[in-house]
């Protein structure tokens, strides 16, 4: 069995330099993800949540602070960390089986183990019978299943998901969220999901990390103490969703307050000391 990784992020910062100007993207992010945990990261666009994921997978470098997997500093990519992007990114000239096998090209498995792992992961994502189909013959949801299988086939410790269902229709998305939950339980590995869909974040996550933009930082971490399978229509679910959404609202209020140079004795966000127009905007 693969073992699940512990991810430690401590005071992680990252800047881009654009036209000789330093642009902070991530500002002192601290987060610990325990083995086998499912963490959702939500935030509006520009909060650096995708950059955070790209740092963890190793596609971005040059960061300050700590980024450790099982105590080892993360440098570059590794088969221990799989990723699923928003677009499926399958190789169009390879069929389903061959695309998934790409994940094992550099794995230290014997040929028999590779073949078995590919078979198992095709079954895991429910694509039995489609082994020889080409990407142009698959629907968006099926392509994303192949992408998940490709990321998991080398049995990584951590799976990163960058808005994996963002481009899918609502029905397919809901179905794949259930599937992803099942896969997470079956594989028992650590998963980190970046999304802008609060319901998705609460449905899947053990904790939901709410990020604030410019520069990206952790606003709050909301634990989701609900048993699986979660009832999206349930009261407890709705409360947590409200809680997470309130963080967004707070963020919007803070931004509006700053823009209007509104001064008040109370700090923004404590109670409702806002002019009537702003209250309406919330």
């Amino acid at each position, binding site marked *: 069995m693969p073992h699940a990784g512990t991810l430690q992020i401590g005071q992680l910062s990252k800047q881009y330099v654009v036209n000789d100007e330093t642009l902070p993207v991530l500002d002192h992010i601290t987060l610990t993800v325990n083995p086998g945990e499912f963490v959702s990261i939500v935030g509006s666009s520009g909060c650096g949540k995708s950059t955070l994921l790209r740092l963890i997978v190793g596609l971005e470098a040059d960061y300050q602070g700590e980024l450790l997997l099982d105590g080892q500093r993360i440098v570059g990519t590794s088969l221990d960390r799989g990723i699923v*992007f928003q677009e499926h*990114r399958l*190789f169009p000239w390879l069929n389903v089986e061959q695309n998934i096998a790409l*994940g094992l090209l550099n794995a230290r498995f014997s040929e028999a183990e590779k073949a078995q792992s590919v078979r198992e992961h095709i079954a895991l994502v429910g694509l039995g019978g489609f082994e020889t189909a080409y990407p*142009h013959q698959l629907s968006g949801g099926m392509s994303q299943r192949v992408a998940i299988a490709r990321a998991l086939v080398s049995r990584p410790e951590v799976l990163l998901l960058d808005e994996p269902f963002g481009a899918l229709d609502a029905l397919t998305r809901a179905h794949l969220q259930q599937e992803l939950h099942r896969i997470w339980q079956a594989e028992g590995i650590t998963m980190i999901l970046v999304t802008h869909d609060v319901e998705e974040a609460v449905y899947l996550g053990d904790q939901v990390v709410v990020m604030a933009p410019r520069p990206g930082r952790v606003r709050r971490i909301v634990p989701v103490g609900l048993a699986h399978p979660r009832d999206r229509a349930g009261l407890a679910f709705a409360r947590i969703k409200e809680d997470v959404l309130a963080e967004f609202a707070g963020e919007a209020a803070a931004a509006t307050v700053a823009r209007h140079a509104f001064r008040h004795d109370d700090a923004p966000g404590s109670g409702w000391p806002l002019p009537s127009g702003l209250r309406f905007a919330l």
Partner: protein
Amino acid sequence: MIATSIPRPLRGWVVPLLLLALWWAAVRFGWSTSPLLVAPGRVWQTGVEQVASGKVFAALGASLWRDLVGFAIGATAGLLVGALLGTSRFAEKLIGPTFHTVKQISLFAWIPLLSVWFGLGDAAKVAFLSLAAFFPVVLNTFEGIRGVPAELLEVARVLRFSRAQRWRRLVLPAAAPSIFAGIHLGLIYAWLATLGAEYLLVSGQGIGNLMIDGREHFRMDMVLLGVFIVGFVGFALNAIAGRIEARALAWRGRSVAQF
């Protein structure tokens, strides 16, 4: 409707057959008495004679051989230069501007230079054909390699592909449609240039020379026979290239737009 009552595979034949009928009628009913107008039957007869005497095969063989040698040299050089330009930004900066300037020179402008360097024989013709095939292959190879999606290159990094794996598994297959298009164009250009070379560097044997001889002896049947053969060879080369391309790129499905 007439258009739909003709079986699909035969539709392409409609225009040529109509033209042939028009030609035949023009001779039969004496619409023109110019000696430039020869009967279709006369051209056919000349064709049969030329085939029987083997002259036409000698001419065609000489042309095709030059075509293939020139194409092979030009396409191979084109693949190498295109791959170099596509892979290395440094090479692009160094060679790119020169290449893009040189490619603007009309192919025929090379003829005087080539004839001085290589004489009027086969060597000059082959060099000319190589140039004709070279440019489209370089351009399309370059664009194919540069056009490999950055998203897929990231996947290659995540999956820890080695340099060789990246080339074999990603760059070459991704660039293949464009590279094939370049080779296909090179093949057609080389054949067009084969005839051009025979006209402009008149010496030796070839289909072009057959036509020039025909013109000089006022044998319109010979000239027309040459035109038909040249057209047929071009059509065949195009069809063969298309067949190979379709086979190699079967993964694209029916739609090229999928990629």
